[in-house]
């Protein structure tokens, strides 16, 4: 029991060491998102609070903290309060398995990629709970939309993951990164990377797939009835999920913590920085898409997921496996 508690304390220390930077970077990433968005549209964006407006998110967080939390009288109170908590928790627990370096990971579990996939598929519950418990039309419609959308795009993300796993032969995230030492998977599996990127946009309810919170139709979707810190938690959870999807994309396709080429000036940069660079690169792509692409119509969104992405990624599974089989490259022999 004693040794158990000592393990527990070191783990808590490690978890804090991981979560605090994640939370801070979520706040910074919101600022980056707004900045990129503004620059594309030839605006300045948030530039008043602190140097370059860096502390804008901090100011926003303070504002949210001191706002009143309004719980609608006709809402289902317990579920209403639980929903942002669920969103936030699920967005944060998945960081446990992301490898930042060769031995720099909180939990190096065998089924890391399945864990990530499972947790991201649980993310839909925060939204459904919030939408249902609000007991109001717009949030409910937003929640229903979001549930259908996330379930659809999860399927194609699952098939894309199968493509990567065929090339690796392991479900462990560190193994997936180590398998990319010679060649990042973005090169042989480039179409899958594109589909993963678009599915990640849909999975995290980002524009052009932000129908669950389409402001022109649903006010703010599932968040309509939320205020103050509870709204902020939804919002933080959403951005943490976006960061997580970027991390997942960099681990699966962009070689995780590996440097692009193993030569002198590049390989002295510590491995976590490479992962952070890649996450930032993907995130800036996310922000650019938000700034440039108009919102999809709902039937187009469903059509894209089920009739284009799913058949194509299934076809690519067959292609990848036959290629690996023909050239005798199948791993794990």
């Amino acid at each position, binding site marked *: *029991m004693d040794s*158990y508690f000592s393990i527990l304390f070191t783990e808590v220390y490690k978890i804090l060491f991981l979560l605090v930077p994640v939370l801070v970077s979520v706040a910074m990433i919101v600022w980056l998102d707004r900045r990129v968005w503004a620059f594309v549209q030839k605006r300045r964006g948030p530039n008043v609070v602190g140097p370059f407006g860096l502390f804008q998110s901090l100011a926003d967080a303070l504002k949210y903290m001191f706002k009143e939390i309004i719980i609608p009288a006709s809402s289902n109170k317990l*579920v209403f309060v639980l929903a942002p908590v669920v969103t936030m928790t699920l967005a944060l627990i998945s960081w446990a398995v992301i490898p930042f370096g060769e031995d720099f990971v909180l939990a190096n*579990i*065998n*089924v890391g990629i*399945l*864990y990530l*996939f*499972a947790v991201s*598929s*649980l993310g*839909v*519950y925060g939204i*459904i*709970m919030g939408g*249902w418990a609000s007991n109001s039309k717009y949030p*409910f419609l937003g929640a*229903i939309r979001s*549930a*259908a959308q996330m*379930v659809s795009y*999860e399927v194609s993300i*699952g098939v894309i993951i199968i493509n990567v796993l065929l090339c690796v032969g392991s*479900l462990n995230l560190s193994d997936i990164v180590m398998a990319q030492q010679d060649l990042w998977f973005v090169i042989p599996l480039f179409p899958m990377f594109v589909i993963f990127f678009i599915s990640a946009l849909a999975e995290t309810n980002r524009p052009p797939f932000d129908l669950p919170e389409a402001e022109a139709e649903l006010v703010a979707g599932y968040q309509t009835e939320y205020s103050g810190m509870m709204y902020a938690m939804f919002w933080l959870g959403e951005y943490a999920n976006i960061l997580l999807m970027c991390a997942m994309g960099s681990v699966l396709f962009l070689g995780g913590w590996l440097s692009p080429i193993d030569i002198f000036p590049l390989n002295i940069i510590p491995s976590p920085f490479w992962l952070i660079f890649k996450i930032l690169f993907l995130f800036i792509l996310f922000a650019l898409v938000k700034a440039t692409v108009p919102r999809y119509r709902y*039937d*187009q969104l469903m059509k894209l997921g089920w009739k284009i992405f799913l058949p194509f990624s299934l076809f690519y599974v067959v292609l990848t496996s036959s290629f690996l089989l023909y050239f005798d490259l199948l791993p*794990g022999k």
Partner: protein
Amino acid sequence: MIAHSVFFYIFSLIAIISAVMVTVSKNTVHSVFFLILDFISISCLFIMIGAEFLGMIMLIVYVGAVAVLFLFVVMMLNVAEQKGQWFSSRWDGGTHIPIGLLVSLIIFFELIIVIGGWKYKPDLLNSISVNISSDVTNTRSIGNVLYTDYILLFQISGMILLVAMIGAIVLTYRERAGVKRQSYVKQISRERDEGVDLVDVEKNKGVKIDA
């Protein structure tokens, strides 16, 4: 080992309580939420006995997809109206009761068989032909068995699922008249000649647009 059993009892307790709450709670949506809690704690139990692959698949399939659809259906149903039908005084005789009794009887006998099987558990463990070694991950060992010895059963279950899926689509599909569908090919292949029609309009006469 103490910590292990503490966690085992915590998760089992949550699983049992939430399983009871699924049937007891009056709000159908709450029932589904308790069902989800049940699934999650069961998958935690799976992970605790070292079957992490099964636990994760349980989370992905049941919690991530099946329960979402449950929630979908339950939220859409007008439960209050149905309650009125079930419990109202002008009840139509109850055609569901015999079927419900039959199903619950079958499940009851199955449970008795399971509890009876508990007695023969030591023999059961000896009769397992697959040797379990700890240095092979259980994902790999499941794959080794599933795609070799039990490939036929695996494929048959896949076929049954496919048939069920097609059946569900056939049952719910209905042709609707007057649905306007967007065809990208048609939109893109439109040329100026067919899209624009220049008409010389006579004075004070107007034109008929839909030809």
